[in-house]
Structures are given as structure tokens and as C-alpha cells.
């Protein structure tokens, strides 16, 4: 008798446990407001990308098309993947001193792991991470970017 009772009570508790789950899924089925899906290309305008999002490295240019990179190559040395290649040319200033000037700031987005150690390493705070994220291109070569704008030059910083 006891075994029979256990047999039927096990069936009953099984159904109860299944019904709890079914009630939950039905709740969400009948409450479409709980839907979390974001319709990505449509909601591009309202999409919230945090300022801190590490999308790609950019060289900061001000309104005079001047950047802060002194071509010290700290970022290139810090980068664990060899993402950054900096070439510099040596110019002579008016008072005869030789000075290194940035020629090309090459950034290979395809190799970047977004660890942001180049930004940490930069003594001039000349580079930053930008929160752009739509990086897909048809050709891998397009991911190799030259970050200094054409015609840009070093920010004239006064020694304090």
C-alpha cells in the first residue's frame, strides 16, 4: 500500500515540477515586453556604446591637424602582437639639432587584441582607444591603417 502511495505521489510531484517550468515559459510567451532582442542594424542610431569600449586605436589629432606622437616607439615595444609599426624620419631643426619626426603610424587592426597596453605605455598620451566597432572589410589589407593624418605634424608643446 505504501509503495503504491509512493508510486502515485512520485507521479504527482513529477507533474507538479514540470508544470512549474511550463508556467514560467508561458509567462514569457504571454509577456512580449520581456523580449530582450536588439534589432541591430535598425537600432544603430540609438545604440549605446560605452565611451570606454576598446574598438580601435586612434592617434589623437586636434583641430590644427596636430598630434602628440614623438615617435618614441614605446607603444611599438609594449605591444605584445607587433600590431604597431612606427617609422620616423630625422630632420634638422633651425638650430642644427637632429630631431626624430613621425613619418607613418601603422596600425594593424587585424592583429590587435585590444589590451590597451599601448595607451598605457604612451608617455605623451597621444593615442587612445575609440569606441567604433564596425570594422568588417572585404580585404584584409584594409585593416592595416595609417593613423597619422596626411599633412599632420607634431603638436608644438612648450616645455614647462
Amino acid at each position: 500500500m505504501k509503495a503504491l502511495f509512493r508510486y502515485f505521489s512520485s507521479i504527482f510531484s513529477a507533474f507538479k515540477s514540470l508544470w512549474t517550468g511550463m508556467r514560467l515559459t508561458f509567462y514569457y510567451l504571454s509577456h512580449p515586453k520581456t523580449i530582450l532582442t536588439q534589432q541591430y542594424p535598425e537600432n544603430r542610431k540609438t545604440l549605446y556604446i560605452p565611451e570606454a569600449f576598446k574598438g580601435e586605436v586612434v592617434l589623437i589629432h586636434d583641430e590644427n591637424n596636430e598630434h602628440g606622437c614623438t615617435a618614441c616607439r614605446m607603444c611599438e615595444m609594449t605591444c605584445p602582437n607587433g600590431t604597431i609599426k612606427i617609422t620616423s624620419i630625422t630632420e634638422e631643426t633651425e638650430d642644427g639639432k637632429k630631431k626624430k619626426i613621425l613619418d607613418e603610424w601603422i596600425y594593424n587592426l587585424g592583429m590587435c587584441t585590444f589590451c590597451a597596453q599601448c595607451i598605457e605605455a604612451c608617455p605623451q598620451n597621444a593615442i587612445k582607444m575609440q569606441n567604433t566597432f564596425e570594422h568588417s572589410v572585404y580585404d584584409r589589407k584594409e585593416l592595416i591603417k595609417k593613423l597619422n593624418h596626411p599633412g599632420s605634424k607634431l603638436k608644438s608643446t612648450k616645455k614647462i
Partner: protein
Amino acid sequence: MEIPKQLIPLEDTPGEFVINVGPQHPSTHGVLHLRIKLDGEKILEIEPHLGYIHRGIEKISESLGYRQSIYLTSRMDYLSAHMNNQACSLLVEKGLQIEVPDRAKAIRILMVELQRLASHQLWWGSAGLDMGAVSPFFFAFREREQILEIFEETCGTRLTMNYITPGGVMNDLHPDFVKKVKALIKQFKVNIHEYDKLLTGNIIFQKRTQNVGFLPRDLAISLGASGPVARASGISCDIRKLHPYDGYEKLDFSEIVMDKGDSFTRYLVRIEEMKQSMHIIDQLIDNIPEGDYRARVKGIIRLPEGEYYQRVETARGELGVFVVSDGNKTPYRIKYRTPNFSNLGALQYIAKDSKIGDLVAIMATLDLIIPDIDR
């Protein structure tokens, strides 16, 4: 414990046949390859084959600096990226004898516990998925997504953060951090009951996991299992309690130890751990000390000559970092003792003599992350 010496042959024998589960298989969560000898549905022998995602992180680290190696550790156990970074950072701090500011410590614990929550949520979802219930996966992702958004705001990335660095953390908290975490914890305390409704209390799930995949205490110790897997077998092994770091000693939380050792116990341990993680976050979220978020550390780190070991509790168990330094800017030798490698060892003993369906359930509750096994 008997160590199987002979590998399972590829050929079938009468009455037995050999199947390869993985490296491309829906339930292996990555590129784990299991060679299984079957008698009908029953598993006679099981043999994990590793190395499909071996990237040589330990070897690469020997040629990279300490700072550069830390970012690689996020790629080992990608669901415990913060913990991996923390382990390396703690080791460097130990070597250089840097005092981490209190604020940084608090931020670290908050981030790490959020990460533990996110990891266990993903595990819960995929455990349901492995047993054929698709819906839990999405319910788990609802909260996990919020945690990832919190990470995104502060750390800049969602999965491989590289946020915890030697000396503290990379950047300060986002102004909305406290508000968002509070809202998340408040919501999750309600929503965790849905976990019980969908899986924990479900009769099918219970029957699938109870009395399946017993990991006895002795075996767990001799295999070096750690984390929830070992704690479900009655071993107290929470590094946060045993060797506190980053101020865990000041916090009130309990280590979840259960002693039945089957799949369902491993499941319960993780569910309870989520509640404990929320408890830890509750204590800290209103009391983040003011001050610096990072102590000054030189750009190029040189550890003094010697050997260093640091362990942390990741979402899956004990992660140990062992470094031999010869005083240069790169480590002479680095070795990660990863939790998943040891936990995987249990699979071939506990899944023996069970059904194929059980194998999937056991793998789900072992919560294996394959890149962490291969490194």
C-alpha cells in the same frame, strides 16, 4: 587508482564500437576530443585527447614581458578572464612587493565576483542546453548580458578584459557602475528562482543528474580536482578562504561544501556559489573606499631572481601561476596550473559505465573550458 596504459584503438571489435566525440561536436564546448568505446549505449572506456587548441601561452610568455603575458591569460579560461589576470597581477605584486590601494582591491573583488556570476550563469545555461533544454540558455544570458555590459563600460571589453594589472586596475570605475551593479543584483536575486523552476526542480533534470557521475572524495584528491567539482565531493578547497588574497579575509561569505559528489551536487554547489557571490558584492558595493585605483608600477617589470607561486580561485577552481625569474624583463619559465586540466582528468573515471546521455550531463557539470586545458 588505476592508470589506463593502452589507448583505445580506432577499430571496432565485435560487440563494442568506438566513436569519436569531438573535436567538432555540439556538446564538447570547444575542441575537446573524446574517444569512447561503447557497448550499445553504455560507455566502456573513455579517453580524452587534448591539444587541438594549444597555443603555447606558457612558451610565448617566456619571450614577452610580464605585462604582455598577462593579457594572454585572459585567453586561457575566457570565462574567468578577471581571475586569470588577477593571479598574474598578484604574483607580480608579490615579487615587487607593491602595496595595492584599498580601492583597487575592492574593485578587483567586485569584478571577480561579477565574473564568477557571469561564468556560472553561462555554465547554467549551457548545462541546460547539453541536456536538451534550450530555453535556460537564454534565461541565463539575460543576466550575463547585463554583467558584460557593466564590464564593457568600465573595462572596455566584454570577454577578454585585461583590466586587472600589476598594482591595481587599468582604469577607474564608470560613474554608473554602483547603480548598475545594485540593479543587477536586485534583479538576479529574483531571477535566480527561475533557475530553480526551469532546471533545479525539474524532475527530468533531477533524474538526469542525480546519482550519475560520482566523483569520490579520494579520487578527487588524487586527481587534484578543485573548485566546485571538488567541493561537491566534500573537499574544502576554496582558495578565497584558505589563502585569502585582495582582502577576501575581511569579507563574510561561506564556502559551499557538499559531499555527495554526483552531477546534481556539482550543480547545486554552483547555484549556491552564485548566491554567495551576490552576498560578497552586497557587502562591498556600498563600501568601495576612495583613493587611487592603481599603485605606481614601472613600465617594464623585472621580478627579482627567484621562484614565485600565486594561486587564486577562478570560477572553475584553483588557478596557480608559477614563475621562475632570472631577473630579466621576461620570465625564465612560467607555468599555469589550470583547474580544468585537473578536472578533466576525472571524466574518464566518473563517466565509465554510464550512458552516452550521462556523459553529456557529466561534462556539463564538470564545466570544462577547453582553451584552459590546452593553454
